[in-house]
């Protein structure tokens, strides 16, 4: 199914306040949380039982409160390639972002928990992931941009092109970029072409392959 309304979601989050809040929010937007668990092992069991469209996974969970979510996501990705996975946490760790994207950037997202403040964008990100795309937190993207070893050629980008690159890396389509930057879609296309040329990336249509290309470039 292509995202849209009525996704079935399994949530793993050890804080009950956040778990309950999130369940309520998603229900308000017409999505069904079929199971809400508190650790990685329970998550894997719940996924096997419910076969949802999407897993929303906290990164720090019991028992060690470090990277349980990432580990669970790694296992899930291997077993259920068509499952959408959103990792969310209170911090952004570039290391985790790299690990996740090294697996695949399709049906994968990494967002700060703060992003629920804008429900429209948050739900949009969830739907994008379930539809096969990517959702990366702007914070992750800017960290990746900052530490990129290609900062020389990044410097040749115009400020506008840089903005467009960041939006692309977050997983937005041309239409999305044109809406959020308030520029025409023709202008977006022009900038995208400029970026691909300057960064020596092969042009591509599909949204998530664009992200993949951009991130590969940033991490290389």
């Amino acid at each position: 199914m292509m995202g849209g309304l009525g996704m079935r979601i399994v949530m793993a989050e050890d804080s009950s306040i956040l778990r309950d809040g999130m369940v309520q929010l998603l229900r308000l937007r017409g999505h069904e949380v079929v199971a809400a668990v508190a650790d990685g092992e329970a998550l894997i069991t719940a996924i096997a039982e419910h076969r949802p469209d999407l897993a929303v996974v906290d990164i720090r969970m019991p028992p060690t409160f470090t990277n349980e979510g990432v580990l669970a996501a790694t296992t899930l990705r291997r077993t259920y390639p068509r499952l959408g996975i959103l990792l969310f946490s209170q911090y952004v760790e570039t290391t985790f972002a790299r690990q996740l994207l090294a697996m695949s950037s399709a049906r994968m997202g990494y967002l700060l928990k703060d992003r629920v403040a804008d429900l429209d964008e948050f739900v949009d990100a969830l739907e994008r992931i379930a539809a096969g795309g990517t959702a990366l937190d702007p914070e992750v993207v800017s960290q990746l941009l900052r530490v990129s070893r290609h900062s020389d050629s990044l410097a040749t980008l115009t400020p506008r092109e840089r903005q467009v690159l960041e939006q692309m890396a977050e997983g937005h389509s041309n239409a999305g970029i044109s809406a959020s930057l308030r520029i025409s879609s023709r202008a977006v296309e022009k900038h995208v072409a400029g970026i691909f040329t300057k960064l020596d990336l092969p042009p591509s249509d599909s949204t998530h392959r664009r992200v993949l290309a951009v991130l590969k470039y940033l991490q290389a």
Partner: protein
Amino acid sequence: VRPGPEQQVTAADTRENEPVTVTPGAGRAGARPRPGAWEWYVSLWQPARFWPRLLYPVLAAPVAVLAVVLIFPLLLVSLVLIISPLGLWALAGVLRIALAFGSLNRTLGRSLLQVQVENPPKRTEPGPFGWRRHQLRGAGAWRTLGFLVLQLPAAYLSLIVTVLAWVYGLELTSYPFTRRWLSSGSRDSSGQIRHGFSFGSYVLDGPWTIALVALVGIVLLVLAPVLTWLATGLQRKLITGLLSPSRQTRRIRDLEASRAMALEDAAASLRQIERDLHDGVQARLVALTMQLAMIKESLRPAAPDVQPADTAELVDVARNQAKDTLAELRSLARGIHPPSLDLGLEAALSTLTATCSVPVRLSVQLSSTPSAAVETILYFSAAELLTNVVRHSGARLASIDVTERDRRIVLRVVDDGRGGAQVGGGSGLTGLIGRAQAVDGELDVDSPSGGPTVVTVTLPGQG
């Protein structure tokens, strides 16, 4: 098997050797009844003690000779060589041999005499020059040389005493049977050679004198293990005195340990604060964000059948969330540094005791203000100990005393509860020990079953 007096001696030695160690229940250990002289004497005959102690003088003496014969000529040569570039290396090599003898003597003392002695510090500096420096200065080689010199007469003294005690003991005890091989040189009236010890023309061969000699032999045998043990006393003192790390070395090691503990403690508190912020305040703020998002959602014109009352309820939830967050942040901040401590330790402790559900008598008698670190540790120790009193002791009355003794600050928390408090077992005492050790202090628990419980925290004072 009851511990003999000699074990108490060594236990006291260890305590003296380690001034910084925490000794929970040390008060009670000191009150352990001393075994009587008879029990001690009987223990001397137990094979596991008897044979090693007899063996020690026999082994120690040749080792002592070998050490002196081998090392001192070499030492002389290396001291002559000292003017050449090779000199220091030769000296270090000789000292290394001396240290090996020291180590051998430690092993003998430990395994045969149950002397409790620590090993010298391990080499920390790498490379050949680090090795040389370690032999010359770090490992206590000069004290070991002193030991080897003094050990020679001491070892011979104990060997002679041991051999004489046993040989004469056995000889005299068996005198009634063995005297027949002793010829006195004089003859009796019937012309037979008289057998036995003789002094001039006087021969010990009358029935009573023979019995007396045998009796002396028996007494000597009875006393032989005591004599053997006493004879090795000097060697035991030499081993604990000269073959253990020097006071300075131990002090450095203790300070290194307490510094490591302080760093660990600081890192652990930071980690705990981060964890508290992450799980508490941050999570609550994220939840608040969610609730605000929900409120906004309910205010959308398209929101399906949402009543103003529903929105008001959501706002209430959000407001309570904000209040809870503030309360949690406040308590977290207080946990990092109690604001009342800015008014002084006494003020902070009286605020603490005033809110305690068990009545607490507080007395603070300090001539000067302790350092901020010490004050903070005193405060948190008192808080934690009071929490224990309230939670576990069932006490009706408690008291907190802060006094100065020998330039150290002593916090004593006493309660009349059921006692039985132990380090470990989630009592929070382990954490307090760590905090006290971090500033070179100690914590002592005396809590017999049935009470009362006395916990003493001793921290360094000013200067």
